[in-house]
């Protein structure tokens, strides 16, 4: 078992499922007073990148990522922690329920806590932009704490799987 977490970092470089029409379902609640305009001005001060996913696509892509991870590794993972990025206009897919998966705002913080007790934890942090008000850069990071023997090869295969989804590795530290 590795004491140093395995890490992967990549970027979604092109529209997810390019060429296939998809409902945008862009989500911003209706503005009904002056304060609403000011509130979204305050929140929407982020550097902009191109959106490559819609709100519904976002969970579909996340499911594809989860499938890559579970398909490419039969090694022990006690907990999968994923960063929570609400709002959503669609329901989280069924595959994220009934198993040891939790969405949290700060999954790395939690992972460090439980990894200190020996848990095998895999963290998915994604920042796929859906709307320009978001602070997002289309990045994906995967961090595997207490990765068991064989995890490096599994992580290599995961990187190939992410690549096939259009997420290209920008840093690969199989420490």
């Amino acid at each position, binding site marked *: 078992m590795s004491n140093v977490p395995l890490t992967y970092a990549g970027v979604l470089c092109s529209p997810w499922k390019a060429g296939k029409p998809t409902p945008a379902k862009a989500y911003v*609640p*209706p*503005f*009904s*007073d*002056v*304060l*609403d305009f*000011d*509130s979204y001005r*305050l*929140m*929407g001060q*982020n550097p902009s990148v191109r959106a490559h996913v819609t709100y519904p696509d976002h969970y579909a892509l996340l499911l594809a990522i989860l499938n890559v991870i579970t398909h490419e590794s039969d090694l022990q993972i006690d*907990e999968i922690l994923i960063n*929570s*990025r*609400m*709002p*959503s206009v*669609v*329901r*989280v897919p*069924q595959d994220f*329920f009934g198993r*040891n998966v*939790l*969405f*949290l*705002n*700060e*999954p790395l*913080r*939690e992972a460090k*806590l*439980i990894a200190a007790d020996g848990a095998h934890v895999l963290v998915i942090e994604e920042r796929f932009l859906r709307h320009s*008000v*978001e*602070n*997002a850069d289309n990045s994906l990071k995967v961090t595997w704490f207490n990765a068991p023997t064989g995890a490096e090869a599994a992580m290599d295969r995961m990187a190939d799987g992410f690549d096939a989804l259009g997420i290209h590795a920008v840093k690969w530290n199989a420490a």
Partner: protein
Amino acid sequence: MLQLEGIHYRCVPQLDTRERLSGAAACEVVGDVIGAEIATTMAAHDHPQVDFAMCVSTIMDMPFVSGYLNWDLIAKSIAEHTPNVPRNFTASYECAGWGFALDYAQRRLPLGGRVLLVVADLNVLDISFWRENENWGHSGFGVSTVLVTIPPAAELSLRVGVAKSDQGMGEFCADLRKWLKTSTGALTNVPFLPAEMTGIYSHFLPSDRVMRDLHSDWGHCFGSDTWISFIDAYQRKDIVPGSVYCATSASLRGYWALTDVMVSDTFQASFRPAIVAKALEAAE
């Protein structure tokens, strides 16, 4: 079975206008409200050991995803009030968030332990959509602090679910009806909805086992509906220590939580006075 030790709710209709100065200032405002609530609750319960604390929300979404709020900064602000800083935050499960937090807590505490749930629905930046909309009528904002003791995992009757169809509320009610058939829980709460939307409750649920729908008093208070119901029922003596009840929550997107709870002998419940912040002139 889960033991309910304390429930305290504070209504927070608006946050201090310092929330508009910067994201960092907003984190401080939010952290101060949550931190003070936790500190007050811990003092009321004579500072028991807490093994797991988590903060959940329904409406605090866009301020986080836009980067205006971040949990690390809020946690620092909470830490100025109390050592019992929630270890994390999630809004992903909407109103059922406290159930998913409990589900995770039992994985972390397989032998059981004391859990502090903080249900925070503060209308950061006073977004009009959250004040009232067609999905649930008018809203209520505030913070619940809920102190429970969970038993060893095998003895905890908790179900967190997700709908399979577009009729999430119907699936939840059907599941709750089934749950009530086997549960010894005398009463269950239901999410607060305007009177014109509550037909689904009378259709699915035995009316003599349902706590009052307090929408006309409080508005829809998201994940705090559960806890407001319990405080109200306790104050009315509809629920008493030593007895079992069912706590539920269901969300617009189709997530829900069901659990049997026993009201402990030392149970405390309170509605705390609302925080009245000065209103910002919309024309400013």
